[in-house]
């Protein structure tokens, strides 16, 4: 057996000895380790719990930003809305088409 083989044999023996020592732990220590494991798993909690407050804050910040943007931006009337009173008026549309004539007529009457 050469030097390398002797070293490998020594390491294999060390591994066997350590494995045996772990396998032969006393029951009290095993119980304590089991309890430690249970405590660690219980402390883990739901995986998403970290994200809940972060998600809530992000949503609130987004809503605030949207509200701030809408409040500060000038209101742009939709095209054609300036004629909305014409479209919804009860008067005959012909009245509005002759509005210039009626205006002139009224001015002439006032002058006369």
């Amino acid at each position, binding site marked *: 057996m050469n030097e390398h083989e*002797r070293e490998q044999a020594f390491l294999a023996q060390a591994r066997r000895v350590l494995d*045996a*020592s772990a396998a032969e732990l006393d029951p009290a220590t095993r119980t304590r*380790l089991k309890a430690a*494991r249970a405590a*660690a*798993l219980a402390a*883990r909690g739901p995986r998403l719990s970290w994200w809940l407050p972060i998600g809530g804050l992000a949503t609130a910040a987004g809503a605030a930003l949207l509200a701030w943007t809408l409040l500060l931006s000038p209101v742009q009337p939709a095209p054609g809305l300036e004629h909305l009173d014409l479209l919804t008026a009860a008067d005959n549309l012909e009245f509005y088409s002759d509005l210039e004539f009626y205006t002139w007529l009224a001015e002439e009457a006032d002058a006369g």
Partner: protein
Amino acid sequence: MDRFLASIEARAFRIAHIATGNREDALDLVQDAMMKLASRYAGHDEAEWAPLFHTILQSRIRDWYRRSRVRNRLRAWLGGEDDEADPIAELPDGHNPGPAARLATGRATELLEAALGRLPLRQQQAFLLRVWEGLDVAGTARAMGCSQGSVKTHYSRAVHTLRAQLEDHWP
């Protein structure tokens, strides 16, 4: 996660026990490592759990070692004792399994653990992680928080010392 922790807890305890020489401290260190792994790394890939766990455990052992050294120095300063004493050798051995357990465990375990306990902490860590946990040099370096060159040096010295002490005496 439960299966993984169950598969490594006994070895983790032995490693912590060899490092501290104290059963209660070893149990605390293993529980701390389990807690941190479960609370912070459960979402990681399962293949990463073993190296992460050993990184955490070795970090806890080093912290424990530093605290023990400070405590022993303080004790030595207050009591006038030798402050160069090995903190591990100074600690009371809480692991006293009694005659029956000693017979069951065998003299080989006793000899190996005693020899490992006498090694400097870094050599002990390098040997156990490489030989027992099967980590490669890079994984061992990550767990120990040092360079790969340091791991090779510590491991080589540990093997040399242990062989010199045990090879001719193991049953």
